[in-house]
């Protein structure tokens, strides 16, 4: 039989529904497997609209299979005394619901079999489904309603729970589960009784609800495209908006509206922001350019579209006229004139005003630019204006336009610098687009290193749960930018440069700051690299240093590809042995000097290793791929060496020579990776 669970609610937050469906699906699968109502991970189909989240699980057992489980009891000595069962044995038998005669001795212990008769699915499902509903919101902001103690993201109004044709009875707040669902709030308000889970989707479709999220998304897109096409317009692609709009209706209906073409004199970003962010309208294009029209997705087909269209248009018109007012006001003065006002905006109490921050970004950008192939003077000019738009009315109204308005208003700068003003905020999201050129990247890096060094420096680094300055995202942005442009710069130097002007304001000592920030970057790299190599390889590479991020990533790639080779584990083991030996020697206080030539009286294994090292050093071993290949070739010689030669001998000369040889080898591989981190024994 199939199982249907539908939680009917008041309108849910759009962003939560897709998350809830994933949680619902995995919760149900786990619970049903634990309850032995399915043998393996079941097929779960989910449905979600603004007013419901639902799932159908196929092929449940009608009852749990009987359980037979071997259980170990007390040891034989404790179970019998003088051939008679003890209390412990009797207790054990009672626990299993069997008699002493049914128990056996196995491996010196009393052993029995617990048998449980499977219960009918309906009985098991009642508490199970109640648990699932309670656990569902987990990490979502939830609310209480009426006088209930339970919470959910919005009030729960009905619950459908059907196992086959039968209702699974349970209660959540004042909703008692049943077989009645509801159709569209306005188009099919009467309850719809379901006889069987298989009718769910079609019954709702009849009730003007497209319950399947993917289908409704496709229908929304199609409706929007079709509406746009009626006026020879095309949709401006915006998948995030499509996802959101899909969650705002149960049945999409599209309408085209218009606005005054004169409003197109506003920057297109402003017009689009008004439509997308504030009104959830789709901007449309004509001949590749933004048109003075939009597509809106309505939840109902209204009786007279003209009336409703006029409403949509009037709202947008008021917003655009506000925007025009801001735009005109803002342009009454040059952007340069706004820079001084940044002194009145607090960046962070201990770190001064936004004006202070800008002055630091200017200096840091100027220092960084030549190291990144950008012009120092241009970088300073961009940095000077990069935050000036924060005091513009338009940015006050649309914070998401910071940077964009800076670019629009920075009319005194050449085009590439104007673009860099906008780009210094990039990437704006974890996966957002990076700056388009090195100039913007330089200022972006300077801005982020100023925040990282400053906030860590005053001891306000992010905790596991709170990151109010978005430093995790900032560090990730730094890494992505540096790697994308291939900037070969020293993390340590930049941090030192960024911290320098803060001097007395910092509560943390310079070396501690370096250490903390390096740790922080290692944490981000670990996450970023998780799908490029196994965790131990990532650790090994991180441990060898991350000062040059570009080089670090190259090393990772090289080690990860070496890992694909059959002889990787022996190589890792051998190098680990080298490092361990050297560490031991150091601990014991043994000393050795850097080896230059093989000693005269040495074994064959020693001689061969010397020769191999010399051969390796003749190769182009600065290239990490070449170095790793070469180091791989040393492995058999090293293995032989360890077999034939004792390193830690009492003869101090011989020992020093051998340690020196190993030290010389370690010098070559240790900057690439710390092989001791590689898991050589697979669990």
């Amino acid at each position, binding site marked *: 039989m199939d199982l249907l669970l539908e939680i009917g609610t008041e309108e849910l937050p*759009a962003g939560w529904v897709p998350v809830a469906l994933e949680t619902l699906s995995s919760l149900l699968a786990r619970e049903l497997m634990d309850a032995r109502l399915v043998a393996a991970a079941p097929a779960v189909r989910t449905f979600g609209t603004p007013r419901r989240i639902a799932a159908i699980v196929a092929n449940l057992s009608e009852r749990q299979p009987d359980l037979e489980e071997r259980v170990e009891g007390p040891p034989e000595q404790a179970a019998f005394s003088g051939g008679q069962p003890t209390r412990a044995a009797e207790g054990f038998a009672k626990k299993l619901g069997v008699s002493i005669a049914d128990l056996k001795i196995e491996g010196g212990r009393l052993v029995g079999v617990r048998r449980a008769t499977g219960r009918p699915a309906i009985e098991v499902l009642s508490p199970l489904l109640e648990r699932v509903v309670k656990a569902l919101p987990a990490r979502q902001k939830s609310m209480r309603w009426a006088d209930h103690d339970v919470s959910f993201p919005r009030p729960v109004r009905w619950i459908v729970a059907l196992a086959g044709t039968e209702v699974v009875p349970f209660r959540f707040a004042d909703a008692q589960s049943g077989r009645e669902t509801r159709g569209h709030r306005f188009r099919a308000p009467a309850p719809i009784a379901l006889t069987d889970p298989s009718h769910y989707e079609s019954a709702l479709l009849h009730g003007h609800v497209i319950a399947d999220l993917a289908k409704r998304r496709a229908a929304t897109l199609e409706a929007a495209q079709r509406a746009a096409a009626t006026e020879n317009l095309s949709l401006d692609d915006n998948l995030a908006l499509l996802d959101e709009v899909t969650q705002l209706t149960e049945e999409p209906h599209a309408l085209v509206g218009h606005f005054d073409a004169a409003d197109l004199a506003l920057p297109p970003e402003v017009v689009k922001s008004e439509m997308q962010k504030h009104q959830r309208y789709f901007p449309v294009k004509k001949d590749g350019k933004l048109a003075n029209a939009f597509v809106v997705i309505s*939840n109902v087909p209204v*009786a007279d579209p003209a009336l409703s269209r006029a*409403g949509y248009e009037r709202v947008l018109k008021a917003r655009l*006229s506000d925007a025009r007012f801001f735009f005109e006001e803002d342009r009454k003065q040059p952007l340069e004139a706004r820079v001084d006002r940044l002194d*009145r905006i607090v960046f962070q109490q201990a770190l001064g005003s936004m004006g202070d921050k800008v002055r630091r970004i200017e200096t840091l950008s100027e220092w960084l630019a030549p190291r990144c192939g950008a012009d120092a003077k241009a970088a300073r000019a961009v940095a000077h204006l990069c935050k000036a738009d924060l005091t513009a009315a338009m940015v006050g109204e649309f914070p998401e336009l910071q940077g964009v308005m800076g670019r629009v208003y920075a009319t005194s700068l050449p085009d590439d610098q104007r673009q860099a003003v906008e780009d210094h905020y990039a990437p704006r999201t974890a996966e957002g687009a990076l700056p388009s050129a090195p100039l913007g990247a330089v200022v972006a890096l300077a801005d982020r290193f100023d925040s990282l060094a400053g906030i860590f420096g005053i001891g306000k680094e992010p905790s596991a749960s709170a990151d109010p300055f978005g430093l995790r995202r900032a560090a990730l942005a730094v890494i992505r930018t540096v790697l994308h442009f291939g900037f070969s710069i020293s993390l340590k130097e930049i941090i030192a440069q960024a911290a320098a002007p803060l001097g007395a304001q910092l509560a943390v000592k310079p070396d501690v700051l370096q250490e903390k920030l390096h740790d922080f970057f290692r944490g981000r790299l670990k996450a970023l690299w998780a799908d490029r190599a196994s965790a131990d390889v990532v650790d090994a590479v991180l441990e060898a240093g991350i000062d040059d991020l570009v080089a670090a990533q190259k090393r990772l790639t090289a080690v990860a590809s070496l890992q694909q080779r059959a002889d990787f584990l022996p190589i890792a083991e051998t190098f680990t042995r080298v490092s361990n030996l050297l560490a031991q020697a150091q601990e014991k206080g043994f000393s050795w000097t850097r080896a230059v030539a093989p000693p005269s009286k040495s074994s064959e294994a020693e001689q061969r290793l010397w020769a191999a090292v010399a051969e390796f050093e003749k190769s182009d071993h600065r290239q990490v791929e070449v170095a790793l290949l070469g180091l791989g070739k040393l492995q058999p010689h090293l293995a032989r060496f360890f077999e034939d030669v004792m390193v830690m001998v009492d003869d101090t000369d011989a020992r020093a020579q051998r340690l020196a040889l190993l030290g010389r080898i370690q010098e070559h591989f240790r900057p690439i990776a710390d092989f001791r981190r590689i898991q050589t024994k697979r669990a």
Partner: protein
Amino acid sequence: MPVPSTFQDLILKLTEYWTAQGCVFLQPYDLEVGAGTMNPSTFLRVLGPEPWNCVYVAPSRRPSDSRFGENPNRLHQHHQLQVILKPAPGDPPMDVQEVYLGSLAAIGLTARDHDLRFVEDDWESPTLNAWGLGWEVWCDGMEVTQFTYFQQVGGYDIKPVAAELTYGLERIAMYLQQKDNVFDVVYARRPDGTPISYGEVWKQAEFEFSHYSFHASEPKTLFALFDTYESECKRLLAGGSGGQVPLSGAWPVLALPAFDQCLKCSHTFNLLDARGAISVTERARFLGRVRALAKGCADAYLQTRARLVFPLLKDRARADREAAQLLTTKAA
């Protein structure tokens, strides 16, 4: 339902609807507030277990939104229609959303002609130690109501949960009358049917209060007033003994008069803010002072109602239990 043809007809239709739903029809509070939530009939009445249903117009003053009567959409003073439903009706088919949709139908807005939607919008007021979850209700893309289920107010869990419905009257009137400028809205009609416009009623006030907000108010005086209202509020919250040995003729803790002083502080702060007299850092400090007063008023009000054993609550056992609980925690 025919669409109300004037601003005042809109108010009448909505209040008529909500009084028919059992709401107490209150008159606007006679102090300056920034929003209907600050009215004691909301802020204080939602505290504790007592039921409370009311409707009132809240003239809402936002000095920073002053535009000299020249902006078609922004006003120094706009009008909200505020409804509090505690507890919010929950039984289908007439649950609180349906009852609310009935009020839209009463002013001619139905799903037959319009796209009505509940779009997630959570509400939070750090100054009032309050938050709630709910929606902005859209009519053809325009926000017509803020719909909030109060979760906490004054730092107290609200139980039973109260629903707050806040209608933006000017916006709705503009929509219904299809006007692009608020001052063109028909406010009322003379006996001969000629319109009296919103501008005729309010434009001069907008002009004068805008000048007051931005130029004429005196920060020095306002700062002094803020201090005075603040200490007055604290004095009233301390009760007639001022926290000292009880005097003869002492009066009890006066939560309601104290809250008036808190509201005056809040409005004075808004005036200072509009005047640009408060720096960013100072701002947080002033808001913190208002927050402390509001919290004190909430505490005092709950104590008072608890001492009266929550007289509006039908479930007397619960009233006794919750009153006792509140009074003992306070004592401890």
